[in-house]
Structure formats: C-alpha cells, structure tokens
C-alpha cells in the first residue's frame, strides 16, 4: 500500500477528503493557509485577540459550508476563505460603528502622520522601529488601498480575485494598489525627513 504525503495533495482534494470525513485534511488546509488568512485579518483589525476570533469564525463558516455540501468554489479555496474573512471584518466594523483608520479619498492627512511619528519615535531607535513603523504606515492607508495591498501581498491573490471580493473592477483594484504603494513611499519619505529634522 502506498502512502500519500498529505502536503502534496491539492486544496480541492483535501476538501473532498474532508467532506468525506477525513479530519486531518482540514488541519492541513488550515496549516497551509493560516498565515495568509491570519495576517490579512490582523493587519485590517490591528488587534491580536480580535484577529484570533475572526480567524476562528472564518474557519467555522468554512467548516459549516463544507459539511453542508454548499461549497462550490472549486479550485479557489484561498480566495473564498479570504472573502469570508473580509466580510467578517466588515461586519465587525459595522457592529462597533468604528471605521478602521480610513478616509474615503485616495489621500491621507500628512499632519496626522507627522504627529504620529513625533509621538512614537521619541525614545526609540529607528532601526528597531522598522516593522512597527511599516505596520503603522499600512494602517494609515485608506481602507480600500490597505485591503488591496494586504490581499495582494499577504493573501497572494490576483487582481481579478481581489476585484471579485471587493466588488470593484480589476483596473480599480490595480489603481488602489498603485495608490497604496505611492502613499507608503510618501509616508516613508516624510518620516525620514521628520526624523532628520529632530
């Protein structure tokens, strides 16, 4: 009898096995995609506990859908999971009536960014701050730019898949990615200037 390495099995095969009662297939699916899904959630909600909750709720929905035989996204497991997570994040912000640091325009408030750096870098070494700073810069992006950047980079989705999830055209998704990158660059330059002048 030959032994098949579960890690070499496609998502779709794992889903089929899981639907037929093979629980280890679910574990492999989760382990395979956990970082992409969790990071995408975490960077949107900026709270570890909340991200854990939404991650769990996402996979409970996944399980319920698979076990009910309602899964019909053949070959697109990860984009489907990301869509569920994305909708849960939106639901959360609707419930608490608190928008994630967002504006509806394509720009950002540069004075807020400067203020942020003045406060946060006072007693810290620049190099140690790199990751924290980048995380914060991402949070300063308008939400629609932030979600495209996160879905593209962390969830590894195509612009077509992002456009399907967010309900915009591929060109709009691409444009938002461009704005996100350009705004990140502007904020990084502003930050450098701000640090040099202190």
């Amino acid at each position: 009898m030959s032994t098949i390495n579960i890690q070499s099995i496609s998502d779709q095969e794992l889903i089929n096995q899981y639907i037929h009662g093979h629980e280890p297939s679910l574990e492999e699916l989760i382990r395979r995609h956990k970082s992409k899904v969790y990071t995408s959630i975490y960077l949107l909600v900026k709270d570890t506990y909340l991200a854990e909750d939404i991650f769990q709720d996402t996979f409970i929905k996944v399980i319920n859908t698979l076990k009910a035989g309602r899964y019909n996204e053949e070959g697109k497991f990860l984009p489907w999971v990301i869509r569920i997570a994305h909708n849960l994040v939106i639901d959360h912000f609707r419930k608490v009536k608190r928008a994630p640091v967002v504006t509806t325009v394509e720009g950002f408030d540069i004075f807020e960014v400067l203020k942020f750096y003045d406060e946060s870098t006072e007693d810290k070494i620049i190099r140690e701050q790199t990751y924290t700073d980048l995380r914060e810069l991402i949070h300063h992006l308008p939400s629609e730019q932030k979600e495209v950047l996160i879905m593209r980079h962390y969830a590894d989705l195509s612009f077509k898949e992002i456009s399907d999830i967010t309900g915009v055209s591929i060109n709009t998704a691409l444009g938002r990615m461009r704005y996100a990158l350009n705004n990140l660059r502007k904020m990084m330059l502003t930050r450098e200037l701000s640090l040099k002048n202190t």
Partner: protein
Amino acid sequence: MIEISTSGTNSLTNTKAESNLLADDLGEDEQSFYCSIKPDLNALANNPAEKTISSILNYSKSL
C-alpha cells in the same frame, strides 16, 4: 475619447488574460519600490495561536 467598459467583453475568456496583464502593470518605479519593501512586508506576516487552531479542529470533530 477612451471609454472604459467591460460590458462588451467575454469575461470567461478575457478575465484571466486581463488579470495576468494587469498584475504586471505596476509602473517600473512602483515595482521597484514594492520589491524594496517586500522583505519588511514579509516580516509582518504572522500566525494564529495554536489554541485557536485546536478550537477550530475540535469544533469540526464535534459535528
């Protein structure tokens, strides 16, 4: 005048090609900047707690 519309296209045959085309359609400058920050972006990737994964697996087994 350029009209931007997808109404006349066959989405089944065109979307994948369009997607691939646009995926590479960031400007040279943008691509270069994106590449330069990728390592830092990657460093932000994180994982959920093992406890959370266990809870999910236990939920599945309980059904």
